[in-house]
């Protein structure tokens, strides 16, 4: 039943599965909907939609499908021309009872017939045709529990099929649904388990050992359970060329924030110099050397940035892109200092590997930090690299040689 509705929901981007659809069929079979469309509307929503941010899309899909007419603007406009806003019809309770809710198919069929017969022009009152203030199933401001309402944006009696048209849940809808679950599952692999807290876990090996030594009289040995004590320093490139990747970075950030208890984060622009920004607006900062000295070397460092910049920004004194900012030491040395202090450090790049590997700065930085794509797979690789840092670290001499060959970049590239 209503299989078309399933596909309408899909088309509106509501993630419905066959399982849920079958549950709905089961519910319809048991007569739970009470043959009322408004109950069906809420029941189907409870079964099919599992996140309030999809409620709005559901409403739109519902409106489209059960309205029965394609959102054909010309058609609606033509009908609206014939409709005038007139005084609403007042009915006594007894009269209202007489107006039974018609089955939807019949209503729609009726509507189609009326439409074809051209019954919609300037019609007021009455029981059959499209018009205003009547008891028919079509038109607006009328009284029929199963009415098809056209246009108007609001109804008088609120009992028409299109409750959905009100779109009450518009505020919960967000086209940027923060689905960070997959990222967090990936990040949850990033852990160092250390014993912590009270002695609350049975130490089986020692218990057996002690018990044996006790000639079989059980002796229980307790140990501290192990908790995740991962410490992460997240350093993110903001502004300029990172703008297009803002979304990916904020997703990573929100995932890290909720998954990693001990997370410190700082910002930079293009390259790290003597200051790291503590806020995204880059209004307050902390000396990079403080960060290096303050945090112990167990911190895992994750830099996020596109690593694409002019060679001068990386290799020159006062090379920073910001005009009023002076750096006495070339950016590459600051990157080297970070890497030297924190052995477990990686760089996540929102660009594809084939792109960042062709840029000169990308090549140089990936010689300092193992560089991975900011994708799920890339994140997985990066986490493995963080837990088992294995490649030899770049020496200061090599860095110096980058600077020496400043004017012969092809020698750095290959």
């Amino acid at each position: 039943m209503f299989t078309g509705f399933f596909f309408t929901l899909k088309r509106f981007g509501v993630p419905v599965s066959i399982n849920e659809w079958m549950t709905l069929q089961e519910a319809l079979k048991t007569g739970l909907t009470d043959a009322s469309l408004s109950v069906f509307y809420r029941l189907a929503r409870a079964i099919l939609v599992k996140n309030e941010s999809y409620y709005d899309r559901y409403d739109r899909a519902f409106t489209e499908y059960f309205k029965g007419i394609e959102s054909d603007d010309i058609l609606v406009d033509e009908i609206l021309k014939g409709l005038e806003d007139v005084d609403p019809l007042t009915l006594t309770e007894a009269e209202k009872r007489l107006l039974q809710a018609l089955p939807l198919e019949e209503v729609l069929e009726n509507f189609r017939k009326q439409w074809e017969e051209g019954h919609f022009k300037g019609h007021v009152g009455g029981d059959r045709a499209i018009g205003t203030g009547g008891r028919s199933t079509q038109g607006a401001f009328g009284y029929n529990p199963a009415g098809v309402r056209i246009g108007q944006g609001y109804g008088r009696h609120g009992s028409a099929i299109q409750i959905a048209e009100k779109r009450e849940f518009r505020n919960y809808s967000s086209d940027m649904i923060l689905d960070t679950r997959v990222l967090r599952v990936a990040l949850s692999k990033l852990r160092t388990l250390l014993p912590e807290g009270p002695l609350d876990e049975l130490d089986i090996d020692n218990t057996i050992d002690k018990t044996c030594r006790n000639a079989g009289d059980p002796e229980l040995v307790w140990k501290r359970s192990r908790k995740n004590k991962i410490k992460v320093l997240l350093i993110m490139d903001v502004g300029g060329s990172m703008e297009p990747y803002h979304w990916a970075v904020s997703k990573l950030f929100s995932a890290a924030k909720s998954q990693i208890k001990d997370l410190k984060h700082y910002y930079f622009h293009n390259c790290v110099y003597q200051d790291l920004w503590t806020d995204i607006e880059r209004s307050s900062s902390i000396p990079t050397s403080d960060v290096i000295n303050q945090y112990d070397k167990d911190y895992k460092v994750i830099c996020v940035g596109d690593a694409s910049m002019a060679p001068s920004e990386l290799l020159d004194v006062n090379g920073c892109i910001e005009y009023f900012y002076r750096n006495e030491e070339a950016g590459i040395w600051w990157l080297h200092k970070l890497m030297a202090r924190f052995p477990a450090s990686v760089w996540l790049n929102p660009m594809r590997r084939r792109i960042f590997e062709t840029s000169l700065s990308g090549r140089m930085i990936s010689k300092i930090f193992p560089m991975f794509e900011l994708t799920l797979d890339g994140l997985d690789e990066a986490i493995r690299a963080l837990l088992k840092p294995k490649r030899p670290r770049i020496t200061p001499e090599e860095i110096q040689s980058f600077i020496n060959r400043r004017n012969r970049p092809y020698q750095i590239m290959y």
Partner: protein
Amino acid sequence: MKKQFKGTESYIASDALSEVVNAATALGRPLLVKGEPGTGKTLLAHAVAKDLGKRLLVWNVKSTTKARDGLYIYDTVQRLHDSRFSDHDVSDIKNYIRMGKLGEAFTADEQVVLLIDEIDKADLEFPNNLLNELDEMSFHIHETDETISARHRPIVIITSNNEKELPDAFLRRCLFHFIAFPDEQMMERIVKVHHPDIENKLLAEIIKKFYWVRSLDSLRKKPSTSEIIDWVSALVSGGVDPRRVKKEIPFLGVLIKKEQDIDIVLAQANPY
């Protein structure tokens, strides 16, 4: 015909909510309830149990809760302890298996209401570990090689505060309802349930003020239903005049719990 849930004297359920509860009961599926804090997610289970006259079991989920805790616990340590003395029968492993809340609900003699409160507090994988148990309403005890299956499928109500997203596979098996924040008429009914004797004039002022406070966008934590009820109690027992509520916000601390928010409200209330 089975008894249908309609809300109780002290818990007003919207039509949508009671329909969903009844549907979940009829289909034997867990009902996942989300909504702003203080909209009565936890109370729903209490109300359902009361209205349908069923026993309520509450499983409070914490960050350390494991899915297995809800099924059963095999108390090895106790058994080991007891083996040193001869006053207990340690040969029967069954004596050391204790049912968790889910196990208790499955083995109950009659249908019960099981509330799994704040499922999002637990580990990311927690809901996934309960998939089969909630689907089949049965689980296996390895130690005794017994399968416990529900004699009467419990009415399972799960609440979530949206701290973590729940896995899709889990969501597919649930019915979902989002408790929207009540509108002004609904709120009036809710307050009247708790304070039947309240003066209409005072109530009108309170509700007006309350929705005004809620409309301030910059608030970190908007006051919710439970806060307005506390606020009304404070105002009623303090004998506050409706005119005073109109002019200022007495007992602001009952409504607003964060220092920064108090500053925001005061700044908005007295701009000069």
